[in-house]
């Protein structure tokens, strides 16, 4: 039996790399200038990509893109994809970078095989599989980058939205806003405990006006925070338990066993009394000055 004729792809790539590159770049450019990425950068990526692809194919053929020969190409693909995801390209736009290499390659294969339809079909199929696989990898890398961005933002939000505020010498407030899942609660608790030490606080007010749901897990987190604060020498007051939340907690059967006040202002008044201070009315109200026009 005759063995099928060898793929002509490697020899085409060796002989016509420059033509293929310029045709590819022309295709990339045909989409018009893009202010998210410079022409120079795009061409640098295309030429680096093609060069690594040629080296990989020369070393191991087209089939094994998971193999070691394709490692440099895979890495470059991830880098390109990552930068595109950060620059705000859609997954389709990112993958088009790779897919638009098909036409220049098909064109060269057509010239090389001429009327030999069988040989051409086999090489076209091999190239299709290769480019599709690379395109899919590009999409995956894009998505992974976006997920990383989202996770980072979540962490930033977690820290941003849990500021510990000093209300008075010895009195801290922690206004909680949003969902208290386990990872965020960890951050909240650490922040509070650190601040208690740093400010030598006697009283910490945890305000939950902005927490939409208090279920058993949230209650448990609150109780642990209160217990830890106590070990650091500070008493906690929980404020902002809205009526519907109070009612729900009763049905759930959770008891916070901690002093609570309807709102932050009542909690603050109580905290002041506890440290032996009081807010008194002076005879005439004094206008607030100096802040209206900024600085």
């Amino acid at each position, binding site marked *: 039996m005759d063995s099928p004729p060898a793929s002509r792809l490697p020899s085409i790539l060796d002989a016509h790399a420059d033509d293929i590159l310029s045709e590819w770049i022309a295709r990339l450019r045909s989409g018009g200038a893009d202010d998210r990425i410079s022409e120079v950068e795009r061409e640098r990526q295309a030429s680096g990509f093609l060069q690594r692809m040629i080296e990989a194919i020369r070393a191991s053929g087209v089939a094994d893109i998971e193999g070691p020969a394709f490692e440099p190409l895979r890495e470059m693909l991830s880098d390109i994809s990552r930068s595109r995801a950060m620059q705000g390209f859609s997954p389709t736009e990112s993958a088009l970078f790779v897919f638009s290499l098909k036409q220049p390659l098909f064109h060269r294969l057509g010239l090389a095989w001429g009327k030999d339809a069988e040989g051409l079909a086999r090489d076209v199929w091999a190239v299709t599989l290769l480019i599709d696989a690379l395109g899919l990898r590009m999409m995956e890398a894009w998505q992974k980058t976006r997920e990383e961005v989202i996770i980072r933002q979540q962490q930033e939000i977690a820290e941003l939205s849990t500021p510990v505020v000093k209300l008075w010498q010895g009195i801290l407030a922690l206004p909680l806003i949003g*969902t208290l*899942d*386990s990872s965020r609660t960890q951050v909240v608790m650490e922040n509070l405990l650190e601040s208690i030490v740093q400010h030598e606080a006697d009283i910490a007010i945890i305000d939950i006006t902005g927490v*939409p*749901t*208090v*279920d*058993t*897990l949230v*209650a*448990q987190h609150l109780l642990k925070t209160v217990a830890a604060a106590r070990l650091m020498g500070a008493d906690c007051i929980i404020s902002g338990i809205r*009526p*519907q*939340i109070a*009612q*729900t907690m009763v*049905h*759930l*059967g*959770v008891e916070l066993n901690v002093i609570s006040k309807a709102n932050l202002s009542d909690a603050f008044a109580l905290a002041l009394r506890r440290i032996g201070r009081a807010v008194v009315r002076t005879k005439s109200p004094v206008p607030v000055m100096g802040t209206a026009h900024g600085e």
Partner: protein
Amino acid sequence: MATPRSTLQIRTSEDIVRVRQEVRARAIEAGLGLVDQTKIVTAASELARNTLEYGRGGEARLEMLQDHGRRGLRIVFEDRGPGIPDIDQALRDGFTTGKGMGLGLGGARRLCNEFNIVSAPGEGTRITIARWK
């Protein structure tokens, strides 16, 4: 009216947040007041977390209810986890096989108008709750 049913997967703790948000939106749509909304959202939060923690994940199916002009919301939590060997024991306040307070299941029952558990060892768990306006 919008789609009367929807199904949410419960695979991660973010999914629990999504269940709460969807239940809140549907409860408002069903005309439940603030207290009833909070009750069913909290019950759903408990059951979704149990589905994730003990049932190895599963799903929540939400259904809008309408009965002779009365409106409400029903939610079915279903998993293919290990099941609950002794349902009465699991419902008892303070009973937990994990690190919880053991209040979620009994609490969810007290927070709803309808509460039904179908579960057997090795067969998974299906819990149905409803809250009417």
